[in-house]
């Protein structure tokens, strides 16, 4: 054990300040992806008190829809469009497709179980996870789909600017800016529109909201749609940034995004954003200093720690169970 500690100190020394900055940069980029997925968890949890296990797989399906669009448009070697329109089409189709998928999942797996015992929707969610993962495995023949390393995406990996000699590539800026843009749009939607008001009312008290004339079923569908759209966007960005997409990726990323939602305080939208970036940065440092195989364990260690010590997360309110 102390051998590992020495290794970590050695690693910190040898990487120096530049290494630390690079890890921070990678962590923030990764963290913005987690934030987007965590928003879906946190919104659904806020409104239904339901842990939507399947959300990580919606993210995975989003990545594959993006890849499918790429393949339909002539493949990564000879795409029919330029880079910017290609990205736009990929994002649009993947976001729409994931959104519809989210609504369908809600309609068939969760809506019939609105008043069932709490364990029923969890098992249904487990079923959705396996259905989606195995379906994608069937369709892709268990192969890995590589987005990048193709000439068309070349410009994405050129440095855009550098901070003290450390390059920041276009794709990293793209990911962070898109994530911020989507989150601002979400904040606007939730706090400034009528639908957002209905969502907040429903998450506060579903029964009372429905008595006030809010069609809660529609609000819940809309919540799933919005959360899944964000996950779909995150999926495409994941593909662009980390390239390697395969059917099992949703499981791990879903768990980490869920960790982000818990760290930020489940049910809290700003909390999910904060938690996502924190988890991304911690994972990046753990991977850089202690070795790649440790990063997952460190992230889940944080999850357990938070669940045991501060289950309400950093920004979540106290939950008091009333009878």
């Amino acid at each position, binding site marked *: 054990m102390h051998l590992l500690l020495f290794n970590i100190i050695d690693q910190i020394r040898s990487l120096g300040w530049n290494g630390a900055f690079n890890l921070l940069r990678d962590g923030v980029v990764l963290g913005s992806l987690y934030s987007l997925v965590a928003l879906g968890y946190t919104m659904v949890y806020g409104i239904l008190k339901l*842990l939507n296990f399947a959300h990580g797989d919606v993210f995975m399906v989003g990545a594959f829809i993006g890849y499918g669009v790429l393949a339909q448009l002539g493949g990564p070697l000879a795409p029919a469009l330029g880079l910017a329109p290609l990205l736009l089409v990929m994002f649009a189709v993947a976001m729409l497709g994931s959104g519809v998928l989210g609504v369908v999942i809600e309609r068939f797996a969760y809506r019939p179980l609105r008043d069932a*015992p709490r364990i029923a929707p969890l098992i249904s969610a487990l079923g959705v996870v396996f259905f989606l993962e195995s379906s994608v495995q*069937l369709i892709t023949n268990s192969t890995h789909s590589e987005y990048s390393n193709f000439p068309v995406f070349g410009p994405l990996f050129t440095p855009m600017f550098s901070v003290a000699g450390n390059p920041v590539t276009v794709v990293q800026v793209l990911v962070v800016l898109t994530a911020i843009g989507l989150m601002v749009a979400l904040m606007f939607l939730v706090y400034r529109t009528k639908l957002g008001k209905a969502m907040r009312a429903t998450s506060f008290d579903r029964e009372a909201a429905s008595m006030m004339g809010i069609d809660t079923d529609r609000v819940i569908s809309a919540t799933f749609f919005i959360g899944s759209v964000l996950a779909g966007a995150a999926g495409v960005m994941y593909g662009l940034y980390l390239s390697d997409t395969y059917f099992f990726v949703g499981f791990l990323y879903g768990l980490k995004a869920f960790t982000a939602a818990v760290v930020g305080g489940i049910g809290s939208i700003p909390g999910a954003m904060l938690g996502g970036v924190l988890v991304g940065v911690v994972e990046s440092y753990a991977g850089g200093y202690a070795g790649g195989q440790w990063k997952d364990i460190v992230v889940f260690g944080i999850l*357990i720690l938070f669940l045991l010590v501060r*289950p309400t997360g950093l920004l979540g309110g106290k939950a008091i169970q009333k009878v």
Partner: protein
Amino acid sequence: MSETPGIPAPPEEPPTEQASRIGVDSWVAESEGRRSRTPAALLARGWESSPDALKLLAFVAIASSVPFWMNEGDLFIFGLFTLLYAALGLGLNVVVGFAGLLDLGYVAFYGIGAYAYAELSSSQYGIHWPAEATIPIAMAAAALVGVVLGFASRRLLGDYLAIVTLFLGQAFVFFTNVANPTIAGKGFTGGANGIPQLDPLTFFGYQLTSTKQLYFFLLIVVTLLATALYFANQSRTGRAWRALREDPLAAEVMSIPVNRLKILAFVFGAAVAGLCGAIYAAIETAAVSTNFSVSVLIIIYAIVILGGFGSIAGVFVGAIVINCTFEFLEPQNDHPEVKRWLFYGTIVLLIALMKPWLKPVLVLAGTIGFGFVVHAIVAATTDASWTSGVPVSGGRWIGHWAVIPTGTHANFDNYVYIGLVVAIVCTASLKGWWRTAALVPTLYLTALAWENVLALNGGITAFVLFGAMLIGLMATRPQGLLGTARVEIV
């Protein structure tokens, strides 16, 4: 109904079945079921009124006849593994079915049992203890981890518990596969290769090596387990577990020691899983961490949920159905004609259960006709490579009915599969005769998907089916096949 202004219309009467379910005692709610005279109801009543000991005896009698008419290979995959899964399901049933705790780390206990056996009865460290010593240690090791998990999660509610236990499963795979600490000059868990060459099960000098011996040993284990769990369920603890499952808060208010019961349930489940793990390791003569992944978890869950939460007999039914489905779908299993009969037979049976009787007749006739029409159109408009494929599961006439292309046809199989999923979603959203009409193309697409994709990738298909089954069961019959329906008492 004419509306009088000022006076709101009376609320519509809910359908009678629903009306009798909410707000009344379960005994009254089920009174209609008790009086019905259909064969299914009579069978169900006969099943319920026969004593439990008799059921177990009948099961043991039938199960012990199996080795005498089944060949060795089939006995291994169908007999032995059904019993093993039944034992695993019994353990999970304690945690999920009796106590209502969603434990997604159950496979980790299974793995701990296997690795415990592997450390103590193999040439890994040169320790060759007999099974009568190793199996209790394996059970104790798993139970100990169960206690730790139980303590850690005594404050966690349903969903959080699920996540933490899921993490335990991941941590176990990480520990055995990646961490693999070096102890006494050797990788403790053998990394990705696991620990090979374990000793066969040896009890007091008597070795169990042949499939038949193992089968009877497992049969005894399963019978004892079922009996023990039956009495545990009848006991004060069992009743307290059920109270905990129905409403933890109310149970706590009734001064039931909720935390102690949760830990007890975890320990029970973990010990059973540890026992199964040790036996499994001995059967496979190796402990490899990939055998304790989430896919095994879904199989065990499918068994418990199909059989019905908290139902011991249900676990046996679930284990038989799920294990046999899984093994028939496995590609290395060469029973193509059985596979075909099972697939088409199940579909026809499900259709035949529709009411009124005219619907299934119309749907089946429509599907057969639809298939021939589509096949004729495709054959007439495209070249021969589109229709010249041979059905994977045999059956010559299917080749003239289903469109099966040969060679590469630009993702035809993927389009069929996605089309099938979309068709099922659309069919389920329609109502009445529209739904019946939509069934025709959906069924044909199902057959196409089966012949073109599903039958070729049996192992994956099994998980698609299990996932779909969990969703479908939760939506339509959450109590499973043999579980008791819960009645909402307001």
